């Protein structure tokens, strides 16, 4: 009834190409933003922040990044975990001051970066590494590229385990986020306030989402989608395939790196690379975008929300209400996720985002069938 484009006229091309051309959508978006920025911080507590909101926001960034690569550019990647690790470790190094050694002597040590810039440096470093591992994509496609990125995953995890420079020679081999603040408010460390970490992550999520949307609706996004849909035709109409693929790898890795940095510094606080950024992380993020919807910004959020919510919801329902054993519920979670992947791949390859789109189509006509 309210969801209509009727009476909503675009008189310029700029208006026609905005993110939410339908007025109702636009207001819904503002309301969601308002609630997320202004209302939630007042009601947030540790449980909500740590079990739901922070992982959702952080995984949403990772899913956005992977979606640009897989959903928009069609280059399958299984290296997400490894790239998140790059983000986490470079964030750590920049937080604690990068030390450069030459011939057994300390050449110099960069000053410690503010946490905000450390996270961004984490993204930039990952973008660099992503471009490097994206280079084979010009020659190999599909499954074979997936295997090549799998090599990146294992290599990077091995690297961060082996080279003690990355974890500042700590005996445990772990990296621990020291206490850091932004404008005097603690962002990392054990004694942070939930609202501060939430707002910090929310800021990055919103900025990343806006950037992703802007890129995918413009010429960069069209280049990526052209490569995805038919790479030969894309080349014939003037898209440089290497550059298009590498920019996709770059932007994607930037987002994934930021999420890795946040995951380590703000969410976990301490990280052992094989455990936190193993292959299962790569699959988790890939499942998010498959369930959420390939090639859709909204889908990245939906998928992240779904896979973060599912174990929590199952725990509440199974353990708290029905009193089932915890391990049964944990296994049930795996079964449901696996089943859903199969169902979505067969029944709705475009994921929750497509269901949402269909629902909106129907809503526009409601209450009439045609």
């Amino acid at each position, binding site marked *: 009834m309210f969801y209509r484009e009727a009476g909503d006229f675009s008189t310029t091309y700029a208006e026609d190409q905005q993110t939410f051309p339908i007025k109702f959508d636009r207001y819904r978006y503002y309301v969601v933003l308002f609630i997320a920025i202004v209302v939630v911080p007042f009601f947030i507590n540790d449980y909500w922040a740590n079990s739901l909101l922070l992982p959702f926001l952080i995984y949403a960034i990772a899913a956005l990044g992977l979606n640009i690569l897989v959903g928009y550019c069609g280059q399958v990647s299984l290296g997400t975990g490894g790239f998140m690790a790059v983000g986490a470790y470079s964030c750590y190094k920049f937080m604690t001051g990068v030390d450069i050694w030459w011939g057994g002597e300390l050449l110099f040590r960069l000053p410690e970066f503010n946490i905000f810039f450390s996270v961004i440096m984490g993204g930039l470093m990952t973008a660099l590494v992503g471009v490097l591992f994206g280079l084979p994509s010009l020659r190999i496609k599909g499954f074979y590229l997936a295997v090549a990125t799998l090599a990146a995953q294992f290599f990077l995890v091995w690297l961060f385990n082996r080279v003690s420079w990355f974890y500042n020679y700590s005996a445990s081999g772990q990296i621990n986020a020291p206490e850091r603040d932004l404008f005097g408010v603690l962002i990392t460390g054990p004694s942070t306030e939930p609202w501060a970490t939430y707002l910090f992550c929310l800021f990055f999520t919103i900025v990343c989402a806006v950037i992703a949307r802007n890129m995918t609706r413009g010429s960069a996004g*069209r280049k990526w989608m052209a490569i995805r849909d038919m790479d030969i035709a894309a080349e014939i109409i003037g898209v440089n395939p290497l550059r298009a693929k590498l920019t996709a790898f770059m932007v994607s890795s930037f987002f994934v790196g930021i999420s890795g940095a946040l995951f380590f510094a703000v969410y976990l606080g301490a990280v052992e690379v094989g455990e936190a950024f193993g292959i299962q992380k790569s699959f988790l993020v890939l499942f998010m975008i498959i369930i959420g919807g390939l090639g859709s910004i909204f889908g990245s959020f939906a998928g992240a929300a779904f896979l973060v919510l599912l174990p929590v919801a199952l725990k509440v329902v199974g353990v708290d209400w029905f009193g089932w054993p915890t391990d049964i519920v944990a296994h049930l979670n795996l079964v449901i996720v696996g089943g859903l992947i199969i169902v979505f791949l067969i029944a709705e390859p475009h994921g929750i985002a497509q269901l949402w789109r269909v629902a909106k189509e129907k809503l526009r006509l409601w209450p009439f069938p045609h």
Partner: protein
Amino acid sequence: MRRCRRLRRGWLRNERATRGCADAPPALPQLCQLADGRARCEVADELYWKDEGRGGVKDTVDSYVTADGRTIGPVVMEMKNITLRFGGVEAIKDISFDIREGEIRAIIGPNGAGKSSMLNVISGFYVPQEGEVWYKGSRRPAMKPFQVAQQGIARTFQNIALFEGMSVLDNVMTGRLTHMKTGLFAQSLWKGKAEAEEVENREVAEKIIDFLEIQAIRKTPVARLPYGLKKRVELARALAAEPSILLLDEPMAGMNVEEKEDMSRFILDVNDEFGTTIALIEHDMGVVMDLSDRVVVMDYGKKIGDGTPEEVRNNQDVIDAYLGVAHD
């Protein structure tokens, strides 16, 4: 001192061609400047062009006016002794022909004659083993297809090669990609440069959409469209690039008579309205003979005829190739 040759009639492509020529006329009063910056000589009955030794630069040749009043310009693209092999198979054997500015040039021939391979050579998809491609007066070095596209050569495909996951508008906008230069950073901000560029190119795309009468399906995903419309959208995408040469690979394959008539009209309109040079491959002889200014006929990788439709129709080799010849 460079040698200059004298040709029969026509016009000069630009002044560069006569610069440094010993026997160039002292002044070329007949030269008149066109709106797009080219110099055109309409009254002169003599023409001078620079000879660079290796076969000469053929960037100034005579132009003529067709019966229906269109001006056909000088040679814009020339294929010189192209030979293309796939292993032991010679797909194209020593073929030379040229494409003039503003003309509709057809390439015909029986199946497997090498027409599509020829088009792929032009669009840079195949690199010929021998021969040269001359474009706008200079030899084209070995290029990737996307570089050829950036030089202003657009094409459509025999089997539709649209981007199925995108809307019609987005597909047409991909045709504008060679004209869009905003960097990634500006795009991530959107407001300002990226948006301005988007709107500017959207206007061109809309002009093409309007021209090909596909406004109603602008926002429809391409995958949902019927075959005939997909062909039209593909033409729109190629046209959106504002190419100087448009290559059409069987634009009417698989169409019914009505759709063929529509498509023929669009091809003629495009040529007339935008002055686009068109090279097309087509099997429907009626269409080819009606549309094209000049026709190249290929058979088994060889050129067996070249000329106006009238000449080609009466060429004995062509008749033999199409109708078969009795072996005794």
